[in-house]
């Protein structure tokens, strides 16, 4: 079995510590995609959020189109598109055309989304997201199957309930980067049981997102990465666990900090041999595609490129 490695996830954020203009960020993205293709990555993955101060990419498919136009063999995926905020007809129609123009190099990862202001911007109640997903996912799955060429569709999950939704449709998972090996194993067991109960043949392989940084100088790169990781995790943590009503700020920050520390432990950081060995553990669980998040916000270019070349060496090992 060959383990495929994707590069991710690009959110196109003009972060406070490096507030580049978005014209530069998107120019850099296209250069990074060319580099990823030359290194031999399977694919590059884009992330989506809306109405955030750092200009997080809100239109993955438009950005994907540009990458497909700049490259010739590299796959492009969404990790993940927040489907309940969209018109499923629009997503299906856009994806089918992009896939055809890109000669089958587009993949879709879709998930629920979780941030109230994003749903609210589109006039949608966050609490309706599950019902919306239940209605949209079968329609999108059918459209992806019928597209010419067909479009691989993954369901982004961080919980057992979300995995079971995907299982009932026989769709492969795109597991969240914050899940531990134990959580992943339990989720896959639940997924397989739900698929059997629904009379569906589960796919052989799933996809996984993981925070990965390949380095030959851990001390140097950890000093560079830590503030970037803390910023990223604080942002996501703030979205996932907003301050409770009546919760005092110090208590909230302490709660947030505990979450950040826990999530940082999931980072796989080391030389190519170390990283390859760790990624093999996920392959053994049933993940055939690992999207390695080596771009955290907007890293210094030379650091990102060093990590990409390092991941290329990992790819050479795991794809043998």
């Amino acid at each position, binding site marked *: 079995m060959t383990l495929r490695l994707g590069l991710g996830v690009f959110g196109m954020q003009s972060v406070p510590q490096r507030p580049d203009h978005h014209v530069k960020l*998107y120019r850099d993205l*296209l250069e990074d995609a060319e580099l990823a293709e030359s290194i031999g990555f399977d694919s590059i993955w884009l992330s989506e959020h809306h109405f955030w101060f750092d200009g997080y990419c809100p239109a993955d498919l438009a950005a994907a189109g*540009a990458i497909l136009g700049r490259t010739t063999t590299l796959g492009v995926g969404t990790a993940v598109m927040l489907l309940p905020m969209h018109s499923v007809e629009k997503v299906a*129609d856009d994806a089918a055309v992009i896939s055809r123009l890109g000669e089958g190099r587009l993949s879709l990862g879709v998930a629920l989304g979780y941030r109230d202001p994003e749903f609210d911007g589109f006039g949608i109640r966050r609490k309706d997201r599950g019902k919306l997903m239940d209605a949209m996912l079968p329609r999108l799955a059918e459209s992806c199957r019928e597209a010419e060429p067909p479009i691989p569709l993954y369901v982004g999950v961080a919980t057992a309930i979300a995995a079971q939704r995907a299982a009932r449709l026989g769709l492969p998972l795109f597991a969240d980067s914050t899940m531990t090996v134990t959580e992943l194993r339990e989720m896959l067991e639940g997924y397989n049981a739900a698929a059997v109960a629904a009379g569906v043949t589960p796919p052989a392989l799933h996809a996984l997102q993981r925070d990965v940084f390949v380095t030959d100088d851990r001390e140097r790169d950890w000093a560079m990465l830590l503030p970037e990781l803390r910023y990223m995790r604080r942002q996501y943590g703030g979205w996932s666990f907003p301050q409770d009503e009546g919760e005092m700020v110090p208590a909230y920050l302490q709660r947030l900090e505990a979450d950040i520390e826990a999530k940082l432990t999931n980072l796989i950081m080391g030389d190519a041999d170390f990283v390859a060995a760790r990624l093999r553990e996920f392959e053994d669980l049933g993940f055939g595609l690992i999207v390695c998040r080596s771009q955290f916000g907007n890293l210094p270019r030379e650091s990102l490129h060093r990590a990409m070349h390092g991941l290329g060496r990992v790819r050479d090992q795991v794809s043998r």
Partner: protein
Amino acid sequence: MRLGLGPVGLSAATGSGLQRLAAQALASSFDAVWVEESRAEGVGGGLAAAAMLAQSSPIRIGAALDAGLYHPLHLAEDIAVADLTCQGRIEVLLRLASPASDRYAAPASRAALEEHVTVLGQALSGAHIQWNGEHLRVPGRLDANQPVPERLALNPRPAQPVVPVWVEAVEPWMAELARNLGFGVAARWAAGAGVPAASGRWPGMLLCSADAQAAPLLAAAGAGAGYFLVAATTPEQVAAAGRRLAGPLRMPGFPAWVNDGE
């Protein structure tokens, strides 16, 4: 005067086919290449296709889009990102009168379409939006979603300070709406038909057939049009249209002998 190729339909297009047309457009002195959605037929992806094409063509790239079928903020976001990926070369033509389709819940009325396009215009302007319409409320400020901001803004913004947007005016109110919002007005060219005047900073746009001739287009230019899209579909048609039209539209007094050999 400006000359554009298209809009080229995306229903059966291939990436390499689009690139060949765009390369011929560049070689034939066209100012822009346009692609075209047709959502009633399930053909979307206009802005992604434009972003794709822009990577292999250095001229401006246009997208003819069906508006009003999904949330205008999604459309604004697509325009912004597509424009950023090509360093500010995107142009847009909005169609408000798409054929009925059971695939989309189309706006029920002219008023709903006007709200959609108005919110789109506000978003593209970079304004901090709060819209309280009969058909749209942005942000929703729904009780179920809390806490949420009172206003929002398109972020990231397009690369261009003002993205050129035209509205195809198949009914008079569409031209009025476009003018009120500072958008351009477009119409299909036909002998004897009206010519859209310039609106805001945008010339009137005429959608012409592949065999359009210079003389009637120059007459239309005298009546206010200034941007001509020619629907050529093969590289040969593109080359021929470029020879016929590019020179005469660019400069008054184009010497006839230049094209006499055709």
